[in-house]
């Protein structure tokens, strides 16, 4: 009776293969930070709390999309890292659990409840500053002057030497777009983008690509979050970071618990840990140099010092909303992208 033996054998094999797994529960993390960081974080947390953590590295956009798709049957418990906007969207759309962690008292005030919903759906775990970097060797080779402001970048001498991501596909580029609108008003911002467009060599798909291209000398100037660029500099590439003189926008790294999480207790434990000094200092050990939001956490020496930086008062509520986002991106696609250059 072969047909009975097969399922029987299968069940025995299944039971045997799982006997090794045992821990004080589980936790599933969707991680939108860099993969090294994600791995280190879940490993550290898992060991400290004896929790079997499985982690999926996923871009912040895809993370939101997946959590939305899984709304009726959440697969993950915590969403860790990645830019705040998609966290905000998820909070507004009722995908996240409100949680006021006791650790919030150690977090700098603006980052305790930054998301659009204002309902403690997300907290900020780090701050990353938007800016650009230039490759010092290419600069020397081409005998050009170093740019210091956003307005410098529209000079004709940089034609074909600048890389920026495409706001259609990259949250980083959208942050830049929203920053200009908040700095100068919408029409002036689009005038700037049109002028900048003439100098752009290529709009990359991912937000971190311009930084790596600049490090490798494929571009002179690359836009991005400067903590990504700090990593390249640390790796020895001839690159210098610029915080633009007009002031600039920034991103907040989000942390949220997913509504209906299967492992709610462990999710809260992880949330508290990620806000703690220990939790936030993990990032720098893996070469991610954002500025931590926990006031007690050590700021890595490679990170941008916040004192010299002119930050705009970034309106995460307005510019994180879907309506504004679609309006600005559509306008960019209509007015800027088709221009010949």
């Amino acid at each position, binding site marked *: *009776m072969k*047909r*009975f033996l097969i*399922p*029987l054998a*299968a*069940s025995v094999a*299944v*039971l045997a*293969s*799982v006997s090794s*797994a*045992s821990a004080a529960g*589980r936790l599933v993390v969707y991680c939108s930070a860099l*993969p090294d960081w994600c791995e280190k974080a879940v490993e550290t947390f898992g060991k400290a709390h004896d929790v079997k953590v*499985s*982690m*999926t*590295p996923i871009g912040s*956009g*895809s993370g*939101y*999309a*997946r959590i*939305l*798709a*899984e709304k*009726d*049957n959440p697969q993950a418990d915590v969403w860790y890292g990645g830019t705040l906007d998609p966290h905000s*969207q998820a909070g507004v759309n009722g995908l996240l659990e409100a949680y006021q962690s006791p650790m919030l008292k150690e977090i700098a005030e603006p980052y305790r409840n930054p998301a659009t919903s204002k309902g403690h759906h997300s907290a900020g775990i780090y701050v990353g500053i938007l800016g650009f970097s230039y490759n010092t060797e290419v600069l020397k*080779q*081409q*005998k050009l002057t170093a740019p210091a402001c956003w307005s410098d970048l529209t000079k004709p001498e940089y034609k*074909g*030497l600048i890389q920026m991501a495409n*706001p*259609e*596909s*990259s*949250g980083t*580029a*959208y942050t830049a777009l929203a920053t200009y609108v908040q700095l100068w008003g919408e029409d002036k911002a689009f005038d700037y983008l049109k002028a900048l467009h003439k100098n752009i*060599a290529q*709009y990359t*798909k991912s937000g*971190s*690509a311009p930084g*790596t291209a600049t490090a*490798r*000398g*494929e*571009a002179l100037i690359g836009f991005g979050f400067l903590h990504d660029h700090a990593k390249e500099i640390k790796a020895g590439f001839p690159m210098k970071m610029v915080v633009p003189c007009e002031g600039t926008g920034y991103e907040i790294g989000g942390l949220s618990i997913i509504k209906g999480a*299967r492992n709610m207790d462990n999710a809260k434990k992880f949330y508290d840990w990620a806000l703690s000094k220990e939790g936030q200092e993990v990032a720098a050990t893996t070469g991610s140099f954002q500025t931590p939001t926990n006031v007690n956490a050590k700021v890595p020496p490679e990170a941008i010092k916040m004192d010299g930086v002119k930050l705009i008062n970034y309106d995460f509520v307005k510019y994180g909303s879907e309506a504004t*986002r*679609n309006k600005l*991106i*559509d306008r960019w*696609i*209509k007015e800027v*992208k088709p221009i010949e250059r």
Partner: protein
Amino acid sequence: MIISTSDSARTERAILAWSLAGLAAFAVLPWRALDYGLFDALPSELWDAVGWRVADWLPWLPTVVLAVLAVRPWRAAAPALAYRIDAALGGAAILALLAGAKIWGVPLGLAAAIQITALGAIAALAAARLGYVQGDGFMTGSILLIAGLIAAFILFPLSTILIRVVVDFKTGEFTPFRFFEIVMSPGFGRALWNSLVLAIAVAVSTTILGLVFALYATRATARFRGLIRIFSILPIITPPFVVGLALILIFGRSGTINDGLLALFGSGGLLVPEGGSGWFQRSGYIYGFWGIFLAQTLAFTPVSYLVLHGLFGTISPSLEEASLTMRASDWQTLRHVTFPLLRPGIANAFLLSVIESLADFGNPLILGGDYDVLSTEIYFSIVGARLDYARAGALGLTLLAVSLAIFVIQNRWIGRKSYVTVTGKGGGGHLMPLPSWMQNSCGVVVYAWIAFTAVLYGSIFMGGLVANWGADYTPTFTHHAELWAAGLNYGGWPSYLNTLKLALIAAPLTAVLGILIAYVTTRKRFVGRGLVDFGAMLSFAIPGTVMGVSYILAFNVPPIQLTGTALILVVSFIFRNMPVGIRTGVSALSQIDKSLEEASLTQRAGSLRTIISVVLPLLRPAIISASVYSFIRAMTAFSAVIFLVTAQTNVATTYILARVERGNYGVAVAYGSVLILTMLIVSMLIDHFVGRSRVQRRVALAGGNA
């Protein structure tokens, strides 16, 4: 309808066995799908998922039906009535179970799958007794299985895309005009136009190159045939975007050509006067239309070569000889006899290339620059800043409609117009050699191609062995060490072994399913054939990105909940590569005379027996080559899996892509070169095998014609 008692007794025993199997599954196996996958579950989770422990009445529904079927209280009734009850009960239980799981949100697990199979098998056995498919139980079961699989894994996922476009996800409102809004939105028309322009340009160039290759390989000197063969299969075993990556190494901003030109003409270059600023600056010309065009031409020329090469083999030399005997010149013969015979093949190769180019996702992704095409737009609608499933759905439906239309043209209009000139009368004679000017110019193209491909593949292998291509050419093993020396749980090993495992599981299943579909659709007449035909045709035309999107939409919620598991990858491999199996099966079956099976069937061998002892031995080479090809396609699969992988189920191609995105070209090409080597070895080993079996097939063909 003749129902003999011994057959009835056999059917009854089989029904009993199937119902007991279903009951046993209920007793010991997890009935509910496990939240963390079958192989990663804790014992307590497994125990809680077993049928009778699930706090829900749904598991009892099929179980009670199976228990009743095991007893068969109506067994004393007239056979026709009794079998009608069996079939109706089995079918109804399956539908009720799926509907219940959908409505109450219960994800179905292993035991439920076994129970559905058991109910289906019972229904099929009973239906066969009632005369369906000439009373053939095995064939009825197979047809039911095929129809069920096609419905579940092709039609159902595609329907979810459609629903996502016409129903608002958040509010549940019916939005019939959403599709048109999206189609009219900025960027859509451009992406469609770009896709079509690119596809046609690529198809023209691959068809011409394929023709040149085929002419040269069949009609010119035999000296380099082996070399041509290797270079024509290389792009097939290469993951789709690795060719693009090699193009970046050569033509990219800090690629070899730019570096060379910069050293000569750049600022401070060799040929620039002292103190001059130079005339050349790094250029990103490869990113955009020409880059994708070049990469796709490289990747798809072998496809059109294989199509045309196969056709050349079917042209009987006697026609050409007749023309030559009547004093036509070589060129006149080629122009007026050979090319007209090739015309359908040329159209075929052209349309296949169009479909391949439309579906390609990897090359536009890494080489596209600002050149948006439909496949990348679908991806970025979901992962980008827009997060818009409706847009992805609308783009996907458009892409599917275009490639389906082209496929229908190719299949219905050209596929039928075959000018095959092989007949039973032995076609003796010699193939006409090419006119010498033509042979020479073909030779130039072929060798230029081979040289170019050699440079590209050289850069892939070398790129993994130097510190930083474009900046620092110090030889080093650090990239390979990072991938392969950090232990089996780190670096490249987990994704490599995972890909290997999943591809090995999927390949034979793909081949068997494809060939079974081919057998059923070419050899059998039955109710519901339209559905099987249509599903099979969809599987030919469906682009990978569309499949990926539809799978995450469809299999994330009960009844079939697969996202995040390795199973969804295997399933996607099977249904994405099924056309390979179908195609191989159809062509192999067309060479086997039906009378062989009829002889077996008349001697009262069941169809299972006939298939095992008559059809399978003749099909063995087809099964092997379909398995190998599915294996290779699964190893290099990219466009669908990118939507489906997780950290635990990462595969080689997505690992490489992640490295490309981080600018880590060294590690990416190091991994790529290992992958290419793996598949080169596998396919050469098997080619050895199948090369031998091909002779057997030719023998079988001759036998069939005689």
